[in-house]
């Protein structure tokens, strides 16, 4: 299956792309998507954004699917044709 990912705002600068089309096996979830994005883009991302050892984002990232609810990246299953937007969340004060 294929899902389309949009990187919102400053996240696009870090990743080096505004969108990406990602091919994944059927039954894949957000965590699988992120692992694939890591393979595609991790060389561009700073350590504070991408944990090379754990192979995942080290800063909070949230997703919307098809413009609907914001959700944390988890084991929820993705579907062919999903449009995913990824947001970088801040934590400073």
């Amino acid at each position, binding site marked *: 299956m294929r899902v389309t990912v949009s990187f*919102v*705002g*400053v996240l696009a600068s870090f990743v080096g792309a505004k969108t990406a089309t990602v091919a994944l096996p059927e039954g894949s979830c957000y965590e699988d998507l992120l692992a694939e994005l890591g393979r595609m883009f991790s060389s561009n991302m*700073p350590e*504070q*954004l991408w944990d090379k050892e754990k192979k995942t984002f*080290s*800063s*909070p990232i*949230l997703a*919307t699917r098809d413009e*609907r*609810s*914001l*959700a*944390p990246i988890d084991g929820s299953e993705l579907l062919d044709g999903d449009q995913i937007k990824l*947001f*970088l*969340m*801040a*934590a*400073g*004060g």
Partner: protein
Amino acid sequence: MQQLASSVVGPDRKERRLLSLFAVRQLSDETRISIRDVEIRALNARILPARYERSHGTVGWEGQIKLLESTVAVVGSGGLGGWIIEGLARMGIGHLIIIDGDSFAENNLNRQALCTEANLGQLKTDAARERVNRVNSATQVTTHPVMADEASMREMLTGAHVVVDALDTLPMRLVLQKVSQDLGMPLVHGAIGGYIGQVMTVFPGDEGLRAIYGRGDDVPERGIEVQLGNPAATPMMVAAWQIQEVVKIVLDAGNLLRNRILVLDAEFGTTEILEVRR
């Protein structure tokens, strides 16, 4: 009070009675009633303390009384907290509880409203009290210069009508949400990093920050702000929205950012309001 008030015609061409700051202070001195209570009595008599004249059109008589009778806890007195404290004092919040165990350092000068070259090393809570006293002497201030944990937070927040999250670490933000919800208080969350920021209001029973950052022990201490820093305008931008959320809660007005998060990106000129899992 009537004798000390003056009649003016406002920009809306309506005549109103105004009470100057000098008159408020004089009445407070003569009657030994706090400045806040003098202002509340004046408002009840439909005499407007002149300091609120430019808020009056949106806040109204009863609204200003509600603000003066409210207690707001601001947890964190740094980048966000400094501007929030300033704004809430100017709106006429009657009592501010300010919690922060930190002192000012040079790297606070770029963005923290209460930090100046002259007060480096000063406790942030002391600077906050001094600033509020200079801006609005009607606002009573209680300070707690401590690094709070869950137990102490619960004690310090008691009596607040609204809690403001101006912290800078994720685990403590989650603790603050838990305590606020346990105490039945709404929480106004804000966070910043680089040119991005976010605002959300959380009520008891809402998933709130748990829907964003998760529930587990693996929540990182900090986010991308470690890489991006926090330039001057970002805390102003987010603090302004947080102040407005507090005012709306107190006045029971408008639409809150409840179960929705406002995501601002000043660099790319985007704003998004996203639904958050309930």
